[in-house]
């Protein structure tokens, strides 16, 4: 997992790791308008693909966890990734990186700089461009993660059921995540029992 040490490069110090974490998450949170999932998707590109600090499997665990534990999804994700890469200081710096830019932005806006003429066609067009770009980025993330993880009937049924539950029946995603836990426990129980039986007869 620790790729930085493998290819002959010296492993960066924890200080430096924290610095990178703060800067990367600050960059991600500033450039990305619209919340959690986008930030996770961009983080996948940065930390799983480009830097290879986190495995795809671990990233999926992170997504699962950050959407189940109460709290802001982007912050939960930052805590998980930061802690994996540089322990508790990493979790703190990644979290600060995610939080500081929006806090500064809101404070500037709230202190009277009420610009943002959202009715201008140029601004509207820019938002349209950014949102289209975000669609492409999440599709790329979904493609990469899906090739590795959406391999069995159980995974596909679960993912489809969640999409249908949210889009068609408009169920709160928090409830769907909680519901998926007993489904997974049942599935793994069944799979283990089958494995045991197969092992017993051979």
């Amino acid at each position: 997992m620790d790729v930085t040490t493998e290819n002959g490069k010296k492993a960066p110090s924890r200080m430096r790791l924290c610095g990178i974490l703060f800067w990367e998450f600050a960059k991600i949170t500033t450039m990305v308008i619209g919340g959690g999932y986008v930030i996770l998707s961009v983080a996948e590109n940065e930390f799983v693909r480009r830097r290879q600090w986190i495995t795809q499997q671990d990233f999926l665990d992170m997504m699962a966890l950050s959407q189940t534990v109460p709290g802001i999804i982007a912050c939960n994700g930052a805590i998980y990734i930061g802690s994996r890469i540089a322990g508790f200081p990493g979790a703190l710096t990644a979290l600060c990186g995610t939080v500081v830019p929006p806090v500064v932005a809101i404070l500037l806006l709230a202190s009277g700089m009420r610009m943002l003429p959202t009715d201008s066609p140029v601004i509207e067009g820019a938002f349209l461009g950014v949102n289209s770009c975000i669609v492409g980025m999440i599709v790329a993330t979904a493609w990469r993660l899906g090739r590795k993880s959406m391999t069995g009937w159980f995974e596909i049924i679960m993912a489809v059921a969640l999409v249908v539950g949210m889009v068609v029946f408009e169920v709160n995603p928090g409830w769907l995540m909680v519901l998926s836990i007993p489904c997974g426990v049942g599935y793994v129980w069944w799979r283990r029992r089958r494995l045991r039986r197969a092992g017993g007869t051979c």
Partner: protein
Amino acid sequence: MSLWGLYFLFIKYGLLCFGGGYALVPLLTSDLVDTRHLMTASEFARLVAVAQVTPGPVGINTATYVGFTQHGVLGALVGTAGLITPALALVLLAMHFIARWKQSLLVEGGLSGLRPAAYGLLLVAVLVFAEISVFTAELPVEYVRGLLQGTPVEWNFYVRPLPLAIAATVAVVQIRTKFPFIWLIVISAVIGALYGLL
């Protein structure tokens, strides 16, 4: 309200916000507006609109603004800190338990259920962003529902060519190359702005 009160109030919100920042909006409406009368409904609606077009997670933006209206800059910091305190404790605890009982039926099973569900949420995020860019409206769920109930609604679901081209290009570039995402966002914003100008 005192600063401590503000801190604990937002710790409560941090604990109650299941499913991310958007879950915070109805929670805050009922609590801040209806119960505590800390802000008016229209003030809150304006805040949510600003939070959605400002960089960063919507929940953080909301907490910062509410804190600011109560206690100025200090209040903004305290409110935001309160919102993220429970997450810090809970995520680290959960990571610890997962690492410790990785082989147990409950942890392995729970994670094998949560992973594909989280993947499904990622697909929903594609739809949510496509509905405000590539598509002209939400998925025609209402249209189908209308047909089934015999009360047809108008068909308003079309695909916009330019956003579709941007999204497809970005997806291919992200899968094939390691081009930095920031430049993709900047270039897409410029193309969109030029398109809006014409």
